[in-house]
């Protein structure tokens, strides 16, 4: 069993839709939770960085962490064609050697 599971998609939605992306994890020692966006032939770009359970909002993006269920989500409101990319969740242990454990990524396409 992988430490972090992420539905690879692909996910296709119409412009303006609300997108929900999810990851589950097995080890409760993970303490930091991130979402990265990766465009084709580019490196991952940090979107959201959270520590505690609950919601964190930044513009059209909301990150949600439920440590009791070992479940994290990223919501994208009013999705745009420019949001079309692969979204990666990444988790980190506290006090680790800065080792991020990634999900396999969800490929999202927003249709105009």
């Amino acid at each position, binding site marked *: 069993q992988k430490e*972090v599971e*992420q539905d*690879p998609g692909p996910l296709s939605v119409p412009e303006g839709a609300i997108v929900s992306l999810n990851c589950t994890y097995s080890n409760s020692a993970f*303490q*930091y939770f*991130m979402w*990265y966006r990766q465009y084709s*032939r*580019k*490196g*991952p*770009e*940090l979107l959201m*960085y959270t*520590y505690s359970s609950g919601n964190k909002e930044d513009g059209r993006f909301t990150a949600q962490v439920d440590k009791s269920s070992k479940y994290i989500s990223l919501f994208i409101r009013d999705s745009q064609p420019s949001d079309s990319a692969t979204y*990666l969740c*990444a988790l*980190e*242990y*506290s*006090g*680790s*050697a*800065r*080792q*991020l*454990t*990634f*999900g*396999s*990524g969800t490929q999202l396409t927003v249709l105009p």
Partner: protein
Amino acid sequence: DAGVTQSPTHLIKTRGQQVTLRCSPISGHKSVSWYQQVLGQGPQFIFQYYEKEERGRGNFPDRFSARQFPNYSSELNVNALLLGDSALYLCASSTGFLSNQPQHFGDGTRLSIL
């Protein structure tokens, strides 16, 4: 400010050869980590360096090595290349070695092994 820069952007090698990849972190960042991303998968951790010392190593063979220089730039070396080493190699930097300091990635070096 410039982000994380990596060179070269693309590289083609043959089996058995050796390769060196380079990374310059964001100005002021002292921690550099290396990741391997195979097509269709998430990045996998290879190394972390902070203040020129190795602080962490992932599950990769000894053919992989790295170092960090006084200016905090870093090199990743891979010896005796195998077909399975074909991947995007990513460098990430952060201000320090604490987990509450997010990592920022470069655009990677795409390595193809023939």
